[in-house]
């Protein structure tokens, strides 16, 4: 190694590499800053008093940290005529999102398992149609869905919203699980059949325990979609059943007197916290490959 002849072009290329690297980091840093700026402004504004907001600088740190705006946003801010803060709507969102995520994930897992491992006649067409469901725009289903909910007698209720989200999410969850399960060799199913296990037993004992990574992916995806949904929420809810996204909109838009930016910001952060929380808690499972060495290796 040491007696390699000196190569001038090598030194130069290393120099170029270094410069490129610095440029890259500066650019990345700028982008990160660009993305973090709004969050920073939201956070600092939510911790300022209204006086300070009026007199101070948008990007400056709060002179005096106060959680008043958070308290107001959570429990007393007005969403139209009611003034209970976002709390009841936050609860609504949880009541909608948690069951909807669980049901759509479980059904997606079953669908994916069937399509990938129990190749029934027409499985491909079935899957193609499911996939097509992913690409139908929200707006298209609004009216038929409203009619459906009316017929089912769940219009304007939380179960109604759960139903809507489950139906709309199924295409995606099925796709996720199907793509995960097709990579599992069919010999596993065959072995279990010879061992005497049936459809549900194989799903429960063999496929579900293998599925943690894809369950996490699906849950994050579904939770984010459902929690952040506004259109279904605003279309299919009524006074007591609105999700937090709709409430947030109402708080920001109900202009009675001065605009309380700090409260708006605090409410917005509260509304965004659960999705952040899900990423932080579940994100690490994203990477885990549990199937490593499962069948061959």
């Amino acid at each position, binding site marked *: 190694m040491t007696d390699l002849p000196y190569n001038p072009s090598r030194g130069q290329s290393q120099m170029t590499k270094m410069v490129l690297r610095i440029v890259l980091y500066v650019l990345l840093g700028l982008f990160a800053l660009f993305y973090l700026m709004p969050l920073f402004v939201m956070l600092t504004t939510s911790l300022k008093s209204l006086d300070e907001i009026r007199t101070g600088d948008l990007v400056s740190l709060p002179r005096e940290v106060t959680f008043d705006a958070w308290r107001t946003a959570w429990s007393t801010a007005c969403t139209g005529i009611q003034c209970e803060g976002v709390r009841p709507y936050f609860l609504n969102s949880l009541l909608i999102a948690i069951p909807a995520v669980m049901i759509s994930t479980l059904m997606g897992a079953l669908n994916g398992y069937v399509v990938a491992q129990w190749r029934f006649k027409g499985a491909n067409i079935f899957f193609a149609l499911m996939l097509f469901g992913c690409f139908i725009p929200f707006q298209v289903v609004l009216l038929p869905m409203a009619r459906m909910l009316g017929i089912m007698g769940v219009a304007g209720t939380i179960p109604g919203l759960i139903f809507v989200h489950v139906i709309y999410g199924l295409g995606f969850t099925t796709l996720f699980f199907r793509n995960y399960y097709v990579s599992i060799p069919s010999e596993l199913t*065959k072995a279990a*059949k*010879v061992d005497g*296990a049936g459809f549900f037993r194989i799903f429960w004992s*063999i496929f579900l*325990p293998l599925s943690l990574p894809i369950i996490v992916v699906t849950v994050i995806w579904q939770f984010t979609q459902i929690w952040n949904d506004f259109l279904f929420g605003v279309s299919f809810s009524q006074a007591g059943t609105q999700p937090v996204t709709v409430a947030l909109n109402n708080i920001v838009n109900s202009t009675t007197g001065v605009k309380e930016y700090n409260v708006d910001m605090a409410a917005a952060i509260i509304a965004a916290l659960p999705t952040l929380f899900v990423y932080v808690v579940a994100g690490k499972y994203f990477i885990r490959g549990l199937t490593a060495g499962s*069948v061959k290796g």
Partner: protein
Amino acid sequence: MAPILEVKNLFKNYGSTEVLKDINVSIDEGDFLVLVGPSGCGKSTLLNCIAGLEPITGGDLFIGGQNMTNVSPKDRDIAMVFQSYALYPTMTVAKNITFGMKVRGIDQATQDAKLNQVATQLQIEPLLHRKPGQLSGGQRQRVAMGRALVRDPKLFLFDEPLSNLDAKLRVEMRTEIKALHQRLGASMVYVTHDQIEAMTLATKIVVMKGGIIQQIGTPAEIYNRPANLFVADFMGSPAMNLIPARTRMNGKGMLVEIDRKDGDPIVLTDTRNKDLPENVILGVRPEDIADAALGRAGETQEADCVIDIVEPAGADTFAVMQLGGKHVTARLHAETSASAGQSQRLTFDLGKVSYFEPETGLRLN
């Protein structure tokens, strides 16, 4: 006694492609049946049909004398070892082995006893609490065997169980499977594309090609009297020499004439066969061509041949020459005097040759 397994006129189509055509096989208790053939010839499909994992298009299937054609896999009293082992990845070795018993609701004490017995038999006790991901290929193979053995079924099915192992381990496991078969006296159907595995393990071989059975017989029958050119070429390593030749009768017997690259044709006299068509393919195993100088019993005929290549392989030396326009391999003694480019006097054992019809490929003698 009824055969353990009987396959009658079995057909299997995937859509419009015929994968298995009119399969008829039966095996008796204790038989070790090997299905052998090139990749894609339908061996796994046939095994899956026997297991009930694939519905069959036509025909009937009996296991232990009972018609199992429409019975689900779990009720066929079979156990199967898969090519990829198909161990349940999230279960420990112990759970893998007992899963079948658990599903069938067998009590815990029996499960434990059987698990112990099988673990001892296969020497996998230290592995029982590991997951499949933490095992080597050979260990996984053992666990897969264990999962089958613990069932104690009427019929064992193996789908290329050794093909994922390295060469050395494969030979070891081959011997072990053979020992296992002898010890248990169990009936087995074993799929492989490796003709050596087939020869060493089988009590009965089925050679398949393109979804059609080419020949069924004992290893000796298959080796010595291949039914057609395909079987002759497929079974044996190095393969049987298949040499175009002409025959004609004279007073002493049948003369077999083979063209040489230079010089007159070789003329051999076969006293056992007669009245074959004029043009035939002569099939000679490499070991039936030997050094004339080193002597050899049997119905031998001598001829001089120019050797093109000499390949010493330890115990034997292979000599390659050109006869009838084909490369012909002879398995000679290690101490042969043959050398490349030189003429060598060789003996041909005409007592063991096969003749094939060139067009149809069918055996003539």
